[in-house]
């Protein structure tokens, strides 16, 4: 069933149908929030808040636009607002520390994956939140550059250039962290 049909059903008085939309986008929205906030609890709260706001504003959703773009924009605004609030209230170092903590699964395969994710999040923490957002949008493959510009509120060309620079910077930071870890292990 398409997003538009689900939205029409919710608008027509079947709020329970909204669950299908939530389940369709929850992983993407949660990951987007997590990559911007680098904090699991904050990301969960931001994603939940975004879905509730989207439901409340569903009456204003224009059917000629994509629900996913609209949803990502709401989630982005929520995540960025929380990052700014957090910056004012607590040092980012705390978020970096939390992002680098594992989830408790210690099998060898997952440990390697956990370690990789830890490196990635440690590198991400050194980027600005807008750069983290742009990289996240880059890896959401169904999102076009026009949509990236729409979601991030940046000019399309600026978003494209900044997205490229951010990925390059992330790769450099990541290489540095991995090399440092390798040196320390020796």
């Amino acid at each position, binding site marked *: 069933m398409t997003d538009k049909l689900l939205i029409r059903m919710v608008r027509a008085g079947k709020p329970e149908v909204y*669950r299908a939309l939530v389940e369709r986008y929850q992983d993407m929205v949660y990951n987007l929030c997590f990559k911007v906030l680098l904090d699991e609890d904050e990301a969960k709260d931001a994603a*939940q808040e975004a879905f509730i706001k989207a439901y409340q504003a569903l009456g204003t959703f224009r059917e000629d636009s994509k629900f996913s773009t609209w949803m990502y924009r709401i989630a982005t605004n929520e995540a960025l607002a929380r990052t700014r609030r957090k910056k004012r209230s607590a040092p980012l170092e705390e978020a970096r520390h939390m992002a680098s903590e594992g989830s408790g699964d210690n099998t060898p395969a997952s440990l390697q994956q956990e370690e990789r*994710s830890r490196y990635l999040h440690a590198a991400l923490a050194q980027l600005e939140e807008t750069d983290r957002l742009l990289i996240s949008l880059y890896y959401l493959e169904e999102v076009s550059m026009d949509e990236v510009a729409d979601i991030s509120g940046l000019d399309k060309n600026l978003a494209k250039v900044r997205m490229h620079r951010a990925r390059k910077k992330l790769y450099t930071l990541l290489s540095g962290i991995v090399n440092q870890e390798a040196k320390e292990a020796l």
Partner: protein
Amino acid sequence: MTPEEDEKLRQLWLGSQKEAPDGFSAFIMESLPQHQPLPEALKRPLLAPQVAGLLLALLIVGSGLTILFGGSAPAAGPPAGWQQLLLQWLGTGQQALESSPALLPGLAALSIGTILLTALDRLLKRMLLHRS
């Protein structure tokens, strides 16, 4: 950035993706407001504040001018060009009112009705939006 580096980063990124926490959608469904989202049309005011303001301003200016001139020229000196035009306009209006006695009460009822309807519309929509 080379395509190989880009691909490495992509693999790493995709490998670090997480699933939304358990019970995520259930929690959201429990947290939703108990009524359905309001359609956009219901959120729009009956009259835009600018239009309502303009109509009110016109009503006040029109009433003020009618009271000020009362259908006659000012006592001091000959009337200026704009005053003549205004008197002419008021005279035409007065003639129309005289020829149709029901026009004035009708206009008054329409104006008061519009004001009341606009106020009621804004009040009800504000209440509905406040609940959502």
